[in-house]
């Protein structure tokens, strides 16, 4: 009897591990596999939609209708992947790349956010690159449309770096005159008073 119980136990364990290997392992697959899977899926989707379009004789949807600033990179070159693939997978690609860069120090240009920003920079009316706060920013073309908030630019630069005199960044050289500080404080105080005053008026 004891042997039978033991045998059942061993068999159960074997089945359990087999099931675990079959079903749990793919869930634990790395981000790269997930990304590759999605890329493959997107590629098949692309082919499918192309065939559909050809079969039905309809023209492809105009990219410009989906947002304001789609299309190839501003610098005239091609993006690292086809547009459709990028639209679907860019978030996974930069997520994967981000961890590679941060933890492993791999700083290749492929799928790096810095490179995205560098190629897809858009100049505003003043001839300078615009930030993500500007609705014309490349990323906002889609993100505004689908109402997905971009967190990236809370920390990352949203435009290529402009080389300028960065002396003002130095907090330890006393460049500001005390008068300038007083002026700033006055301005702040005035703004605050007007804000509070406005609120008080609203309440009345």
């Amino acid at each position: 009897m004891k042997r039978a119980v033991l045998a059942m136990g061993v068999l159960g364990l074997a089945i359990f591990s087999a099931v675990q290997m079959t079903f749990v392992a793919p869930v634990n697959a790395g981000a790269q596999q997930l990304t590759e899977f999605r890329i493959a899926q997107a590629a098949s989707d692309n082919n499918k939609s192309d065939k559909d379009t050809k079969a039905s004789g309809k023209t492809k949807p105009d990219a410009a209708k989906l947002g304001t600033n789609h299309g190839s990179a501003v610098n005239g070159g091609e993006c690292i992947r086809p547009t459709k693939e990028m639209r679907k997978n860019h978030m996974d690609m930069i997520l994967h790349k981000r961890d590679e860069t941060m933890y492993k120090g791999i700083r290749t240009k492929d799928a790096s956010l810095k490179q995205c920003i560098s190629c897809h920079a858009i100049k505003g009316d003043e001839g300078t690159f615009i930030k993500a706060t500007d609705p014309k920013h490349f990323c906002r073309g889609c993100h505004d449309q689908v109402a997905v908030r971009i967190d990236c630019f809370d920390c990352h630069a949203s435009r290529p770096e402009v080389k300028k005199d960065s002396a003002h960044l130095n907090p330890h050289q006393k460049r500001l005159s005390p008068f300038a500080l007083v002026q700033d404080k006055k301005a702040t105080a005035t703004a605050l008073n007007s804000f509070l005053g406005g609120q008080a008026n609203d309440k009345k």
Partner: protein
Amino acid sequence: MTRNNFDFSEAGGCGTSSCSCKSQDTGKAEDVTKRDFLKGSAYAAGGISLTSALTLFTFGGSPAQAKEDETAISSKQRWGMLIDADKCGDDCDTCVSACSEENGWKNTGNPLTDTIWIRKIKVKNPETEHETTMPLMCLHCEKPPCVDVCPTGASFRRDDGIVLVDRHICIGCRYCMMACPYKARSFAHEAVEDQKEHAPRGIGCVESCTLCVHKIDKGEQPACVSACSKSAGGAMLFGDLNDPESEISQTIKKYATTQMRADLGLNVGVRYQNI
């Protein structure tokens, strides 16, 4: 020795630091005795002064080996720094300016909440009234308390010994700031604009010296080290502590150097000389 007994007094040139110079318990400003400062350091126990004999060949330096972009970092390296307090000028803040410029942090004139990645500290021996100044930043411990206490795993140590914050998963709890014995970390209270593209930083996250990780990955030296050797006393030496042939390894083998708060057993990557 409790942490509260170990407070730094600020150097004159750095009045805007977020560092509080007062003991949390007593509320009184305390002068740091040199003894307190060095306590626990085996090397400092003898009080040997090799001041005049020492020469650090920081010009020429021992820069990081350029690595291929595709290659991952490894624990074969351990980046570290040696700071010679004798060569550090009293009123000089070249390293601080260089860091601020390189990484794009600046303060708003609000010492309690401003970001500080590196600051100048001044220690005084009350018996002899001898003052020493030196820069203090994240010391990149081998066993970092900030990593131990981080509830989300945002504080981490790279394989090559650089301690960083993963801002993507930092929730801004500031537990690491409490844990750090060197007050090396600060919290970004204000929204940040126009960040450097190689140094992302933003509101709601804790941040500290990254040892200019973006430069090290390219095989360059940290900004403070380059600036110090270029236009100041050449007090900072950067290199690979794991490489016995590197200049930094040779120097710490030959001369007595100090780990700040060595009694904590953190095995810091940034060591000091002549303090």
